[in-house]
């Protein structure tokens, strides 16, 4: 049993009150004097050259202060050093419907919107590519000139001897799986407010401050510096509350740069908030993925070899694409013991919004394929799906065939837990027609062991300052985005210092104030920023203890800091509470002085007269330490150990992590065989998070992940018609409502990682991937149809059911799953190909503008 005071306790987020009262401020809640509204003009073409842009009419409109185009900020950038293929606003060419072309800064939203209609862009349409497998055949009119065949990147990895493995197999299973495109749909639309200050020495525009809805303030600072050609030190990025990210704010989104470019041109603060439609165009979600998977097994289900080909429809820019396609292959490892792997991954460019990182980055769709295939194999070999997983478990500590180091491994217990809780053995296959159980597992990194820009510098740093007021301030660059990173930091610091949680104030994600942290993505914050906080707090603790040891006349090892007090070992019982009054003395209490007002003249003076003490209040110890050492500060940083950084092959940098989380799930569903509708009744999700620093937060993360997986499994899908997104809104892109969201039981498994802070690993992403195959496998258990295309919409299920029953085929699905008609159905559209694009209606009566009536 542990004996923590703050760690492991269910604690409300330290910023919860601001969220429930509406007082908390998100980027769009800020305003500055003289602030302008920025609105962006987007491309109506999927692929076109820009011949010219005339902004003169827009600039002439009363209330418009500035209009900027690609020429105003032509430097390319991108989140990956190998993928600097974006510009804030299009330079010479647009690559998807919704690409950013120009921005108006005006005194009101209405005027800015009206001015957009006055910008005249002359486009020359180019052939466009919408299907990745077609796009790979392209010879001319490439989306980016330096990407042959529109292939952003392809990797071909061989680990072990896959052919030998297949030869040794008793059974080989092979199938194609497809997962359609989904997006983060965070509730907060992206927003950036940018403001330049005048430099007192030069008299011209000087420092830039940006408030932005971002998961990665330091990357934003870096890219702003590249594009604006300003030193990073002159740019301050502040991350206010962020209304959900899920990866959609984990790289630089065009508006973040455009706002600064517009502010520079307008010489006034500019705020841009995306409309929901623009959020869909900014996208960076999970790509449509085609997976050809082949698995060889022994008769007991033991995997001998895996061959996997993945094609990702990446959209028009690189974004995180190279990392995504690498994760898809690398994280075939580290869940099960797979001796031989062949992986062929293709990240392909198409004329659609760029895909990027989304919760479970790179792993989710491949995991769906793999866990479905395990279920298919179990059926074929007449094995219990749970047994197939158990026979393939890793034996840690180990390094996988593709170079991933695994230390803590709670997967066996996760499987045991969900098997027990769901009464799997008793109920599987016995729930009657139309109802079934399915299981699946997944895992995820606790941060990438190698940063995007490879270096040995720390990935996270935390500074702590304590002053004589007894307040503890932790400065962290980690980005709170609702997952609880600020609370995690406060908890770790309070635990190490043995002080009350309320003493700890967290200042986070402000590049002027806080030390560099790479950001909130790849589930890295608890592990990395948490370790940095731990180390910073330990440094401070050491100084307090050495001073306290002197003061109490004992060895430093005998000083205990706990429950807001500092005392000599054995002096008082640990559970004894000493109130402030006891420390302050009756005189102070009578004057109404409370804990936290200890300054010179009170405690300090009495202390000098008293001689050696047995115990002190936290403040008293702090004051002693400042007396003894001078200023009391601590710094801690974290960089992953060399042993965890992976192999040497090309692309080996992606996949390695200091620790992996594990998840096992069982889903119970029923299927209406007349309508194809699936009802998920319950999901049992066991997640190994190392140690749950805050069980309420861990449960929230796990349940949220499972639920998001459920959305992808059943309802969510970006529907495309030749590069036109048919559902760019929350009404038609269906994120589940409460009515169809099932009961999700979260079971926390604590494997206590040897390197995690207090043993903690990630909790925010790893559970998502298992949900989709768990549901698919349950559908199979219920009605005997295997769904190999996500989402499992009622039409897909009904079509499969009818095929199975030998009923008359109804052409019900418009896609490429094995039961669907071969040809993609034509529903009109395709106007660009017919030379009938948007220019057909230059004079839409509804937006007849703007013929300038008056005089200047």
């Amino acid at each position, binding site marked *: 049993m542990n004996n923590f005071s703050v760690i492991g306790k269910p604690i409300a987020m330290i910023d919860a009150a601001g969220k429930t009262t509406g007082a908390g401020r998100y980027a769009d809640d800020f305003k500055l004097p003289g602030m302008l509204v920025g609105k962006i003009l987007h491309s109506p*073409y999927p692929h076109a050259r820009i011949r010219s842009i005339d902004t003169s009419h827009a600039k002439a409109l009363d209330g418009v202060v500035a209009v900027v185009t690609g020429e105003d900020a032509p430097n390319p950038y991108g989140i990956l050093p190998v993928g600097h293929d974006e510009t804030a606003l299009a330079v010479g060419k647009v690559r998807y419907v919704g690409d950013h072309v120009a921005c108006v800064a005006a005194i009101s939203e209405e005027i800015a919107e009206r001015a957009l209609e006055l910008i005249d862009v002359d486009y020359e349409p180019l052939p466009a590519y919408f299907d990745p497998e077609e796009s790979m055949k392209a010879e001319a009119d490439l989306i980016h000139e330096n990407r042959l065949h529109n292939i952003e990147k392809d990797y071909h990895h061989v680990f072990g001897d896959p052919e030998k493995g297949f030869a040794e197999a008793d059974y080989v299973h092979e199938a194609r799986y497809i997962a359609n495109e989904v997006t983060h749909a965070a509730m907060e639309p992206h927003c950036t407010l940018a403001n330049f200050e005048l430099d007192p020495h030069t008299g011209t525009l000087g420092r830039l401050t940006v408030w932005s809805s971002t998961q990665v303030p330091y990357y934003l600072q870096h890219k702003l510096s590249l594009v604006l050609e300003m030193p990073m030190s002159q740019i301050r990025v502040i991350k206010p509350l962020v209304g959900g990210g899920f990866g959609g704010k984990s790289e630089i989104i065009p508006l973040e740069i455009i706002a600064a470019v517009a502010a520079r041109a307008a010489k006034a603060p500019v705020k841009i908030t995306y409309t929901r439609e623009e959020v869909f165009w900014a996208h960076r979600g999970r790509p449509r993925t085609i997976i050809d998977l082949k698995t060889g097994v022994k008769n007991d289900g033991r995997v001998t070899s895996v061959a996997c080909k993945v094609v990702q429809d990446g959209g028009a820019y690189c974004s995180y694409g190279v990392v995504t396609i690498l994760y898809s292959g690398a994280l075939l490892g580290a869940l099960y013991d797979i001796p031989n792997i062949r992986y062929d991954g293709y990240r392909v460019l198409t004329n659609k919004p760029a895909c990027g990182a989304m919760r479970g980055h790179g792993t989710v769709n491949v995991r769906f394929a793999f866990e479905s295939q395990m279920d298919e194999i179990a059926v074929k070999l007449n094995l219990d799906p749970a047994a197939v997983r158990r026979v393939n478990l890793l034996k840690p500590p180990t390094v996988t065939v593709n170079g991933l180091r695994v230390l803590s491994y709670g997967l066996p217990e996760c499987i045991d837990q969900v098997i027990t809780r769901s009464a799997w053995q008793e109920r599987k296959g016995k729930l009657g027609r139309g109802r079934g159980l399915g299981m699946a597992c997944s895992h995820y990194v606790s941060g990438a062991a190698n940063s995007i820009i490879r270096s040995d510098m720390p990935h996270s740093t935390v500074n702590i300052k304590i002053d004589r007021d007894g307040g503890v301030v932790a400065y962290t660059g980690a980005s709170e985005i609702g997952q609880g990173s600020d609370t995690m930091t406060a908890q770790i610091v309070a635990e190490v210092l043995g002080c009350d949680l309320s003493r700890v104030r967290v200042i986070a994600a402000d590049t002027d104030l806080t030390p560099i942290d790479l950001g909130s993505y790849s589930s890295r914050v608890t592990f990395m920023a948490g370790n940095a906080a731990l180390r910073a707090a330990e440094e401070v603790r050491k100084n307090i203890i050495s001073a306290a040891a002197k003061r109490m006349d004992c060895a430093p090892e005998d000083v205990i800091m706990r429950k807001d007090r500092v005392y000599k070992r054995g002096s008082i019982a640990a559970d004894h509470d000493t109130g402030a009054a006891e420390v302050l003395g009756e005189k102070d209490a009578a004057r109404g002085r409370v804990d936290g007002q200890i300054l010179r003249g009170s405690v300090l003076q009495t202390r000098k007269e008293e001689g050696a003490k047995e115990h002190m209040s936290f403040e008293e110890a702090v004051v002693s330490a400042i007396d003894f050492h001078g200023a009391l500060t601590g710094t801690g940083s974290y960089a992953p150990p060399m042993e965890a950084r992976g192999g040497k092959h090309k692309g080996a940098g992606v996949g390695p992590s200091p620790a992996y989380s594990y998840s096992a799930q069982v889903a119970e569903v029923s299927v209406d065989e007349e309508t194809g509708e699936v009802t998920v009744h319950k999901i049992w999700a066991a997640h190994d998070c190392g140690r749950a620093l805050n069980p309420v937060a861990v449960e929230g993360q796990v349940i949220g992940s499972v639920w998001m997986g459920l959305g992808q499994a059943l309802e969510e899908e970006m529907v495309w018609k030749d590069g036109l997104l048919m559902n760019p809104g929350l009404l038609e892109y269906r994120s589940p409502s409460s009515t169809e969201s099932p009961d999700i039981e979260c079971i926390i498994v604590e494997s206590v990682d040897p390197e995690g802070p207090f043993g903690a690993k990630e909790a925010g992403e790893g559970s998502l991937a298992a949900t989709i195959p768990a549901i698919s496998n349950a559908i199979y258990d219920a009605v005997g149809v295997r769904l190999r295309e996500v989402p499992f919409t009622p039409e897909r299920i009904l079509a499969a059911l009818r095929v199975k029953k030998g009923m008359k085929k109804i052409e019900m699905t418009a896609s490429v799953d094995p039961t669907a008609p071969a040809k993609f159905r034509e529903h009109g559209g395709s106007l660009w190909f017919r030379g009938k694009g948007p220019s057909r209606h230059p004079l839409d009566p*509804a*937006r007849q503008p703007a013929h300038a009536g008056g005089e200047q």
Partner: protein
Amino acid sequence: MSLPSFQLLRPKSLDEAVAMLARHGGDVKIVAGGTDLLPSMKQKLFTPPFVLDLRGVRELYGIRSAPGDGVEIGALTTLSVIENSVLIRNDYQVLHEAVKTVASPVLRNMGTIGGNICLDTRCLWYNQSLLWRQSCGFCLKKDGDLCHVAPGGKFCWATFSGDTPPALLCLGAEIEIAGPDGVRRTPLSEFYVNDGIVRLSLAPHEIVTRVFLPESAARWRGSYQKLRVRGSIDYPLAGVAVALKMNSGRVDDARIAITAVNPAPHLLKDADVRLIGMVPNEEVAEAIGELAASTAKPLTTSALTPEYRREMVRVFAKRAVLACAN
């Protein structure tokens, strides 16, 4: 997204509203709950010089019943009020069932019965932003000359997507319409035009003011089955309303209507002929399902394929008949 500019008219009485409409004719859009019109105005589907806000017209609120003479519902009565009306729940079950499936609870606090009846037809190629529509060259229904759903034709297939009208059709409801020439009353079944653009037999300066539910349809058994992806918020992708007058296990009279699969909600022809005198068992219900499916003409105007939606009309019609029987 901002709304286009307009002048707001806020009448305090029906007479004032009618006079304002007469003055400004086709330049006015009428807003009641706003849940249909305002999102469309943000997308610049409508940019009227005047918007007439009916919220101040108190006489159009509320549910009134005259014993033996049916029920009268003011056009501004919110869907929540109808949902919570004991009278409606007891006597006009099919309407109660339909109204509680509309959108979400909060949207039902805003949306009105008049608005639901006059709902604009919907299509994935139409309910989009100005830029989106521009990027495909607009469509027949708004600013363009081509239908993306059926590119060869000159007919608009935008789908009527209201939930309550099929229920009201099953009840033989009538509506009252006020205009400059006075008040007229028409059966709801004659109000709809099966054309995604024309939609309604309603002149620009007319207002739907009241709905009448006849006493003759009171206490009929009713069921409304709605196809949607989410359990809330969504518009119907198909809907079937069934009302049966039962007499010791046999059908005395019957009406069945479908929605969200055609440009107008439709009463099924001959549903009564097929059902009167029958015991509504599985076999009878199946036949009604086939009838309903043959009336449905869904195209790719919304999520889920037309074939699937038509198949669901069949299944739901069958289920609704059986639900009424039990």
